[in-house]
């Protein structure tokens, strides 16, 4: 019985307390090797949750990045996770936190939808369709 319970727990649950709004991937020229993904992540639960990873078949690697401004220079750095506080939201937007699709396997097409799997610290996960937008 214990084993069963453990098994059940180890299956990733769907993240029901997390809502994603306005996800999009930025359309870039075919010669661009990378692109960014943006969205608003809402945490409707009463516990802080972290986005711990994102996966997609669009690029060789998918990382979470932030932009740091230092002495007038913008520095892009990888972050381990992105925190979404309880009953709050975190915005991934240009010039700040974003998903970084590194090494695009193919050129992007406007308005196509790209599936991204988001994994959270409460071991839940969420599949999100990101439209490719020119904005």
């Amino acid at each position, binding site marked *: 019985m214990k084993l069963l319970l453990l098994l059940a727990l180890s299956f990733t649950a769907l993240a029901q307390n997390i809502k994603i709004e306005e996800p999009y991937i930025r359309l870039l020229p075919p*010669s661009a090797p990378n692109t960014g993904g943006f969205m608003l992540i809402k945490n409707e639960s009463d516990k802080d949750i972290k986005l711990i990873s994102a996966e997609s078949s669009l690029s060789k690697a998918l990382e979470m990045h932030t932009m740091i401004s230092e002495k007038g220079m913008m520095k892009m750095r990888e972050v381990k996770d992105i925190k979404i506080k309880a009953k709050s939201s975190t915005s991934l937007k240009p010039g700040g936190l974003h998903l970084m699709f590194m090494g695009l396997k193919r050129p992007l097409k406007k308005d196509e939808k790209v599936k991204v799997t988001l994994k959270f610290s409460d071991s839940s996960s969420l599949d999100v369709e990101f439209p490719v937008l020119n904005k």
Partner: protein
Amino acid sequence: MKKVRKIVIPVVLIFLSLLIFRYILSVDKDYNIPQMPTGSNFSFDKNDRKIQLSDFKGKVVALYFGFTFCPDVCPSMLSTLSSIYKKLDTKQKKDFQIIFITVDPQRDRQKKIDDYTKFFEPSIIALRGSVQHTKRVAKTFGVNFSKYYPQKDSRNYVIDHTTYAILLDRNNEISEFIPHDESGDVIEKLILNELKDKK
């Protein structure tokens, strides 16, 4: 006596090192006082042709230092500048030039930056030179950039860089520094204003 020495010597050493540290800090500070960049008449070779900033005297120029690996800030600025350009009338278009200079010449070949900028607006002029040359030119506009390796493997790097665009008047003099997060409306006003000024 020995005991006293044991205490005094480290204290003196700490005091001395603090003094030296302060000195280094203050030197660094003096060194860092920013001077207003004045720009320069740069020159780059493009497809066996020499392109100089002074070729565009009489036009308003928006200058941007960026690179194609940049997923975020560079395309935002290029796309904003391009959409403003597209809205101009024929006369204004003739009087306005967007110039893109890559800060990543190692990965950004000429064709790559041409294709890249064409996507935003075909009239953009994309320039590429050696790292040293680009650094020198960039510095005159107050733009700095350097490589950063997230992992210790030497292949993948990102570039930390100054992200403002520079608006130059018809005499190639710097008129505005435009922060990357400035709104499109404000940038449009700045450009239209500059286009109005017939000095």
